[in-house]
């Protein structure tokens, strides 16, 4: 732990509630810019609905394009929330404190955005409720086909979304009470309603902590299942060489954790830079997260290598031809090199140095790199495999994304950041209660001539 100014509860309230109670003016310009991006994407989708799915770049062999790549990407990002929040909470990791809520909020918005992609993607989006849990068409006596991963997907995603939202709301209650006491007028009524009569007495705290632990434990299996199910969208398909690897489920889960934790680090670095939270999101938090990233990235890399190896091991001609396309043929050879460098070979060796791990700007750029790499990973898995589904060369094809698809992909990024920023306008995105608990549990140890803060592990 590093030397840092001692924080009082008053400091914590003032600093962490600053975006809520005294929003800086540039914040609104930022929101406006992102909202324009989102509106453009809505326009793009309206265009697609009006003119037909033909406005996308998809074609006969490549029936799934950028939208599915982006869907998998956002589901992957959404894995960070529970990974950080639940696992670190259950294991009592002290350094989780500032990161948990940002991670959960990123989960909610990334998952919600991911859930929009199937809507963009289908040919008749106005009928998509036939495949989603609340909209099953029981009125006509027709059930959804439970053998299809596209029925599992909405089920898993809605479970995960519900669970994470409950988790966030539950952990937000004490902070909402703080806001209720510091706001006036309409907002006070809203915060008062949302804080559900929180008084901060011992019984309430006890219930809240128990509920937090229970939800953490309950949500972990969902966290594993969601991305496994997303991988089964691909793995169940016998028709596509290169997709029916049995390793897909754990490979996708670990890949999701890889991109998700990287996403959280990027968001934390941004928040720290925007709201000057150097005393809360400290260098040693980045240090700890980067150490976690090294482990996760290496585990993911192992799965990547195994997946490739198992693919080429039987030396079957269709699979070999697909892997050749993925690795050696233009433009995928360039994509593949960029993907390997950005996803693993540049960031991980950098993180081995403490100076990099504790440099927020470098952490921001390296984690951004990881996510570019991980986006390309999904691209490399989905597109080339569809281009060479089977050895019937007559039906081999190619794919070029259309402008509408690019707009929708860009719009999805705007939507997620708009969501996270809007959240930070109305709710504290670093948990006040957790920060105060951290301060309360803090002790000091003498190192040489100075007293250095050292955190206890809670029992």
């Amino acid at each position, binding site marked *: 732990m590093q030397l840092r100014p001692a924080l009082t509860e008053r400091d914590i309230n003032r600093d962490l509630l600053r975006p809520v109670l005294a929003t800086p003016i540039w914040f609104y310009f930022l929101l406006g810019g992102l909202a324009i991006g989102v509106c453009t994407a809505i326009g793009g989708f309206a265009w697609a609905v009006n003119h037909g799915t033909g406005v996308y770049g998809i074609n*006969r062999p490549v029936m799934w394009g950028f939208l599915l790549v982006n869907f998998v990407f956002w589901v992957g990002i959404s894995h960070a929330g529970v990974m950080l929040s639940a696992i670190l909470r259950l294991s009592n990791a002290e350094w989780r404190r500032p990161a948990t809520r940002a991670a959960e909020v990123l989960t909610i918005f990334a998952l919600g955005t991911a859930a929009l992609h199937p809507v963009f993607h289908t*040919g008749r989006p106005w009928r998509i409720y036939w*495949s989603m849990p609340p909209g099953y068409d029981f009125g006509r006596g027709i059930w959804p086909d439970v053998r299809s991963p596209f029925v599992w997907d909405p089920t898993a995603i809605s479970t995960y979304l519900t669970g994470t939202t409950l988790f966030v709301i539950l952990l937000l209650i004490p902070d909402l009470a703080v806001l209720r006491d510091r706001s006036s007028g309409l907002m006070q009524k809203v915060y008062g309603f949302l804080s559900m009569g929180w008084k901060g007495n011992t019984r309430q705290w006890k219930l809240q902590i128990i509920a937090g632990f229970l939800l953490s434990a309950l949500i972990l299996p969902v966290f594993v299942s969601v991305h496994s199910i997303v991988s089964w969208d691909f793995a*169940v398909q016998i028709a596509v060489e290169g997709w029916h690897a049995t390793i897909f489920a754990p490979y996708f889960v670990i890949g999701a954790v890889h991109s998700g934790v990287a996403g959280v680090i990027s968001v934390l670095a941004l928040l720290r830079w925007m709201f000057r939270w150097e005393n809360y999101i400290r260098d040693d938090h980045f240090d700890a997260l980067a150490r976690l990233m090294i482990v996760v990235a290496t585990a993911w890399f192992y799965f990547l290598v195994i997946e490739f190896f198992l693919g080429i091991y039987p030396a079957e001609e269709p699979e070999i031809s697909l892997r050749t396309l993925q690795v050696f043929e233009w433009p995928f050879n360039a994509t593949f090199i960029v993907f390997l460098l950005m996803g693993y070979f540049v960031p991980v060796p950098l993180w081995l140095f403490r100076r990099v791990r504790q440099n927020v700007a470098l952490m921001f750029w390296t984690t951004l790199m990881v996510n570019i790499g991980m986006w390309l990973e999904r691209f490399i898995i989905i597109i080339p495999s569809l281009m060479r589904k089977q050895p019937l060369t007559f039906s081999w094809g190619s794919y070029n994304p259309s402008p509408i698809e690019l707009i929708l992909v860009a719009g999805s990024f705007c939507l997620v950041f708009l969501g996270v920023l809007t959240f930070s306008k109305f709710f504290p995105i670093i948990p006040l209660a957790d920060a105060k608990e951290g301060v309360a549990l803090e002790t000091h140890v003498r190192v040489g001539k100075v007293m250095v803060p050292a955190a206890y592990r809670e029992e």
Partner: protein
Amino acid sequence: MAVERKWGMAVDADKCTGCQACVVACQSENNIPVNEPDHFLQRRAIQWIRIERYWEGEFPDVRARFVPMLCQHCENAPCESVCPVFATYHNNEGLNVQVYNRCIGTRFCANNDPWNVRFFNFWEPVWPETLRNQLNTDVSVRSRGIMEKCTFCIQRIRRTTRDAGLEGREVTDGDVVPACVQACPTNALVFGDLNDHDSQVAHLREDGRQYRILDHLGTEPSVYYMAKIDPYAAEGEHA
């Protein structure tokens, strides 16, 4: 009709000349929009049956090979199990059928179709004014955003079965003739009931030249191909 049929087709690659008559017949029978060159360039042409052309050998000893490719109506169809809304399912006559107004257009079935014989309507279909009156009234025109595929001319199967029922007789082999089979000038395509052991298609299934495309996937296709007899082929290259 309590008869459990299993419709199937035999395609004799040796007789196929690649004339594309089946393709044109299918287009006009099944209300498939006209495929303009753009549709082919975009790889969005809809052809329920197509002639796949492969080149064999090295120049100058090159030979063209034609494979008529249509929906294989698999017993164990991979496209059926991935549809979230049961828009495609297997009926009791061995047909893999597509319910147009149930389809939501996830294109999952098209991805999980090894033969690439499922087609997506990227745009609302349009016909030139001169072809408006040519549309087949027995076949629904598909709207955009849904999948479509070869039905083995189910409208002809239904009509023949109904007519036979009215006349009080059984449907016999050769009664049902899909458009492609009807149009084939060399009789390379044979259609019939695989469960009827006396049918022509059931006999062809026993033929020594018989094979099924991508049989190793275990989907049990109902379309049987008869290998090309090639006197010039190297020893053991062809059956």
